[in-house]
């Protein structure tokens, strides 16, 4: 039987495998060496690979990404940790103006194989800035790849695929699923930029990524009890989107509901809705609906349950979709 890992531990194992395979892989960030990261995702790496390759940096996110770019130019493959989603913005300029654009700027001469790991999303009762979902900013930025894992098996393989990519990758880790356990296979079943159809459905398909995949699966199960056939797609890749898979489920189930934790206004759901509608206009029997957080700053923990999409809100959208 394949071994079982918690999602966080699976990323740890993936990092370990990547570091063992390629000595150019270096891991860097705030509190990642001695402490092993605030979520312990890098636990034990410093002991195994030394503090030259597992580096506690000064407390400066622009510095983390900016120096990672320099390391990549020198031939290294840096994997940066941003401690929490809400702390990536000081590095925004280095990410969108430098990391994303340098290959094109150099006419393809320079590769920046940098991975930026971001624990993402809410639902853990955290204080401000520790629960944000900011994938849309990076997905709108040409030159980056953006992926999001939802389970230990994907986490283990996707982190290694991201590190192996010669393009910069924003790697989202669903922090409230870090402790969820699952089997981890020896070999990846998909490439990094393929979505996974977790469940087929003929009445409607839910499209989710990262932390909301489990919510979508629960909603699909509930809908089945009510007699509907509801499918679930785990996006896995946010940029580029796996449009062939999305088109296929749209054509088969005629109704699509996108679920994510980010606010709906210009969230990735809007791109999926626009793209699928363009490609499958005659197949759709309802507009693609979006279930996301409200368009508010992430609220205090006390209110987050009402803020985040949950099974009820997904079912409400499925009902709305079916009533078209």
């Amino acid at each position, binding site marked *: 039987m394949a071994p079982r890992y918690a999602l966080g531990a699976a990323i740890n194992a993936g990092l370990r495998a990547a570091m063992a395979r390629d000595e150019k892989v270096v891991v860097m960030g705030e509190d990642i060496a001695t402490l092993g990261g605030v979520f312990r995702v890098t636990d034990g790496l410093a002991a195994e690979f030394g503090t030259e390759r597992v580096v506690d940096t000064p407390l400066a996110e622009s510095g983390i990404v900016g120096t990672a770019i320099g390391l990549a130019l020198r031939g290294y493959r840096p994997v940066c940790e941003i401690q929490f989603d809400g702390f990536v913005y000081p590095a925004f300029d280095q990410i969108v103006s430098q990391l994303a654009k340098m290959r094109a700027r150099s006419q393809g001469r320079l590769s920046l194989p940098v991975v930026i790991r971001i624990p993402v999303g809410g639902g853990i009762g955290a204080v401000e800035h520790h629960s944000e979902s900011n994938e849309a900013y990076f997905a709108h930025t040409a030159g980056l790849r953006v992926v999001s894992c939802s389970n230990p098996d994907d986490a283990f393989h996707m982190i290694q695929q991201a590190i192996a990519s010669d393009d910069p990758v924003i790697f989202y880790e669903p922090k409230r699923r870090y402790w969820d356990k699952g089997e981890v296979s020896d070999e990846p079943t998909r490439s990094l930029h393929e979505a996974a159809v977790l469940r087929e459905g003929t009445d409607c398909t839910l499209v989710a990524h990262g932390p909301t995949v489990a919510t979508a699966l629960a909603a699909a199960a509930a809908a089945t009890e009510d007699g509907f056939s509801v499918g679930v797609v785990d996006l896995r890749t946010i940029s580029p989107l796996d449009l062939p898979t999305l088109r296929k489920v749209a054509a088969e189930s005629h109704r699509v509901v996108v679920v994510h934790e980010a606010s709906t206004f210009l969230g990735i759901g809007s791109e999926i809705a626009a793209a699928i509608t363009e490609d499958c206009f005659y197949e759709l029997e309802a507009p693609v609906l979006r279930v996301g957080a*409200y368009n508010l700053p992430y609220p205090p923990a006390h209110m987050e349950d009402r*803020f985040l999409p949950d099974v009820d809100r997904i079912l409400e959208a499925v009902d709305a979709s079916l009533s078209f």
Partner: protein
Amino acid sequence: MSAHPLTLAADPTVSTADLGSLLAARQDDPASTAPFQLVDENGDLTAAGQDLGVDLELAQVLHTDMVLARRLDHEALALQRQGELHLWIMAWGQEAAQVGSIRALRGDDHVFPSYREHAVLLCRGISPADLLRQWRGATHSGWDPAESHVHINSLVLGTQTLHATGYAAGVRLDRSDEVVMTYFGDGAASQGDVNEALNWAAAGTLPVVFFCQNNQWAISTPTATQMRTPLHVRAAGFGLAGYHVDGNDALAVHAVTQHATARVRAGEGPALIEAQTYRLAGHSSSDDPKRYRTDDELAGWQAKDPITRLERLLRNAGVSERHFSDLEARADTFAVEVREQAKAIHGEDLAVVFEHTYAEPHPVMQSELAQHLARRDGAVA
């Protein structure tokens, strides 16, 4: 500063002028890299303390502030362990740096804190309820800056130093003689924003005091990883007046802050104070400091506890046992208040966030608020 019963004849001989000449003398002295002290670890006056004299009335105020602040800290951590708070950020060990500095300001001097300045907040009259609201997960901030002249904190490290700098630009435009104070940590000092703020304030000769509590750690990262030279040296690099003080010596912190503030208020440009102190507990209620620091290091700093030190000074100066037992009783009463106020904090409904995000009507807000209310009130199947 609130009135405080005199229990001793105080002889407040530390004048700004005296301290000024002393600090000036130190600048020529290579040994001046040692932090300025008035009271040593045993509660005895240092040479500077003897030279300048200390204000025992002030010492009692600061000691009282610290005892109450530490009690808040203990209660809040206990509340967190009981599930009454989501998170707590412990300040213990850092009380002297906080009360010594805030008590040197005028009440109308605006303060831009980081997240660990509970002792500062208490000195500014912020109630335990207002202070704990945020850590109970009920709100993102607790108090009204217009009342306390303390801005709400930002958890994005260092950002507040630029807000303080801009606020100071406004103070100057208003031709006011207020001073603006901002607190930040040794870790935050590595952020671009903090360095932009230091430079901007210096270039503009703005009335800001940058107060760094160097508590030796940024979560698990020691100060040596953040910087090569002590932070107070950076002041001169940007053209600020730099001060280095023993952050566990409340009287020294007060004297140095008073000196810095007077200069800043006089229009001589910003100052940077580095206070050497130590976070005796974990980074927060989620942190296990044993993963990254030794028992020996901790013991060394426990011996420099700011409260013990001032208690010794006061006892040596003849403050009665009665005073301390009264204070203990007061702290017990305060602890009860803290617990009661904490538990009485009730979160509000998400509807308030819809109301508070924009000042003016916003259609997305309005339609989503309607959805939320319908869902909340069960109007949706």
